[in-house]
């Protein structure tokens, strides 16, 4: 008598989606987690996670994800490698369209598709991506042994990864458009104490130049002075863009940047559809609140399903 394939479909395999999966499996919901391989969470690109509770010595980003995945598997969560191409959410039974052509149906959905790194949007960036322009310090740091490189940004990710990059590079210049960092104090203190890290304040990157690979950055200070910085690599770590390509944002509700709006219980304005993690419109994007939101979203889903059934 069950008209839907699932009670709950979770889209996304990062900390929010996996935590939702753990809670859904323990609630004995008929649930599936869909992940597309490519976006298993920004945490995968994090070298070392020092602020997730319960790991006093820290843990690598991918080991944390591995452990969350194993924990979800222990409670029997069904997971599938699948790319979602669209959602039909007009009716109470929601349809999830997959890239394989298949459609699965569910009463409730949790959207945990996360976010991806922003690009600078300057000349040379696209052409030199993978040839010196990088968005992942853990992935690409080892290619810059004994070289001079730059990091663009001033938040936690930028400053922490600048620190990580000093394990390889001889000099790391942090280019930041403001006069001070936004990064957490303890991360700032480590960076300021590191002799390999230098800062260019009030400065923006206007272009990335090079033929076979990155050779220099074209810079401009906020008061209009132009300059250049010779580097072989530049790591762009300036915040994130929501992974919302297939989401019906006008129905779900989103902020002006395309992040999904929810209430405190993670509910979107469509009954039965929750959002959790970096895809949500919010100020703080940390692993710990992403995971917490995954749990809250499942409890909202359970409430919704109880009313439904």
């Amino acid at each position, binding site marked *: 008598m069950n008209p839907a394939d699932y009670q709950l479909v979770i889209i996304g395999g990062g900390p929010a989606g996996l935590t939702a999966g753990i809670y859904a499996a323990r609630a004995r919901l008929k649930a599936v987690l869909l992940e*597309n*391989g*490519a*976006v*298993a969470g920004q*945490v*995968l*690109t*994090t070298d070392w996670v020092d602020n997730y509770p319960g790991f006093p010595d820290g843990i*690598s*980003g*991918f080991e944390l*994800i591995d452990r969350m995945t194993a924990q979800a598997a222990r409670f029997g969560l069904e997971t599938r*490698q699948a*790319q979602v*191409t669209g959602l039909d959410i007009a009716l109470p039974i929601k349809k999830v369209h997959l*890239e394989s052509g298949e459609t699965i149906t569910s009463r409730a959905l949790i959207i945990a598709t996360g976010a991806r790194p922003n690009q600078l949007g300057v000349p040379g960036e696209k052409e030199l*991506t*993978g*040839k*010196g*322009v*990088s*968005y*992942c310090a*853990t*992935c*690409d740091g*080892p*290619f*810059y042994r004994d070289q001079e490189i730059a990091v663009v940004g001033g938040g936690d990710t930028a400053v922490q990864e600048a620190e990580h990059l000093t394990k390889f590079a001889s000099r790391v210049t942090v280019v930041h458009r403001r006069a001070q960092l936004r990064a957490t104090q303890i991360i700032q203190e480590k960076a300021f104490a590191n002799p390999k890290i230098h800062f260019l304040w009030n400065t923006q990157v206007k272009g990335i130049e090079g033929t*076979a*690979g990155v050779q220099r950055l074209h810079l401009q200070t906020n008061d209009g002075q132009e300059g250049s910085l010779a580097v072989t*690599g530049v790591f762009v770590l300036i915040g994130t863009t929501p992974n919302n390509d297939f989401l019906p944002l006008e129905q779900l509700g989103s902020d002006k940047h395309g992040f999904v709006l929810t209430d405190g219980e993670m509910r979107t304005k469509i009954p039965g559809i929750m959002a959790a993690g970096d895809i949500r419109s919010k100020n703080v994007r940390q692993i710990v609140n992403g995971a917490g939101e995954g749990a809250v979203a499942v409890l909202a889903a359970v409430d919704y399903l109880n009313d439904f059934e």
Partner: protein
Amino acid sequence: MAGEKVIHLTDAEFGKKVLEAAIPTLLDFWAPWCGPCRAIGPVIEELAEEFAGKVQIAKMNVDENPATPGKYAVRAIPTLILFKNGQVLEQITGAVGKAQLSAMINKAL
């Protein structure tokens, strides 16, 4: 079993097994310390199943094999290069979805 169809290549084998190969090759440059590389691993294995006999799907560990990534100026991973008749047909950097990779591979057929 998934995964058995993915070929693991070394620098020494690259010329014979890729450049001189009769069929196109998608080569995934990866390393064990790269989270996104691990994340796309299952996708690479599925592609190897689906394109078996038509396109070789191969992986090369850049830690153990520095020469080939050097030759193709690979400075970010995962980087996936599609080779046909000894030439680079297309190159993609970063963890991308299966649909995008399938579309790329189909260009070599």
